[in-house]
């Protein structure tokens, strides 16, 4: 039994894909910056602890 032939994506699907790529990239960038901020927050807390320990 042969699989049914797949129809090519329509024009609006290509347009949606192009716009989606941009928005996914923006979301990924926000996620990366969020992770970086958390790392910086941890490092600041660690340095504050170290400074306190020194008196």
């Amino acid at each position: 039994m042969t699989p049914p032939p797949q129809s090519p994506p329509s024009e609006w699907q290509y347009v949606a894909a192009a716009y989606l790529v941009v928005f996914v990239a923006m979301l990924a960038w926000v996620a990366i910056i969020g992770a970086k901020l958390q790392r910086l927050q941890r490092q600041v807390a660690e340095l504050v602890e170290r400074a306190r320990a020194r008196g």
Partner: protein
Amino acid sequence: MGRTLAQNRVAALGALTLALFAASIALVFFYAPTDASQGFSQRIFYFHVPIALTSYACFGWGAWKALRVLWKRELSADVESYVGVHLGVVFGALTLITGSIWARASWGHWWVWGDDQLVLFLVLFLFYCAYFMLRYSVDPGRQRANMSAVYALFGVVLIPVSFLAIRLSHSLVHPTVFTSHGPQMTAAMFLTFCVSWAAMMSLFATLYHVELTGKRLDASLRELRELLA
């Protein structure tokens, strides 16, 4: 005071970017007319071309800061040049991906090696990708800043070549929209394009300031850690 101003600037830029993106999407899908020859897929143009122009602006900004590193001996401009080039590569990757999707929808091919502008943009993109390999192969300091700056300045020469390639080669594959007679599109299309480009430039400005703040914070923390060690 200075920090509050910087935070307010980033927040204002972020809000402006969101507003411009909302306006751009609304104009692209509800205002701009459908192109007679390319049909609905021409709407990719409103994101693809502004992203490409913004990547040129990022590389140009990176080169300008690189010039300041070499000319004014400003070491602080090194990180600004790096962030400009980094964002240029991000926008460049998006240009290649959205362009490829548009090419598939319009020409039936993901990539056309015979098109000068496509190939030259890929060369420009790969050239700036190699910038990071060079930069991270050298220890931080004046030598790295100088080498990175020279490399960033060399790359900027490719921008006018890439931009003019389509006009010089008279390619029939890649459409020429901006000619010496002005933009070859209706007023509604041109307005939509301008708003989309403003949104992309505003996004660049926001990302630039956020990334630069993160880089500077990183450097300050490293210095503080060394002082407390």
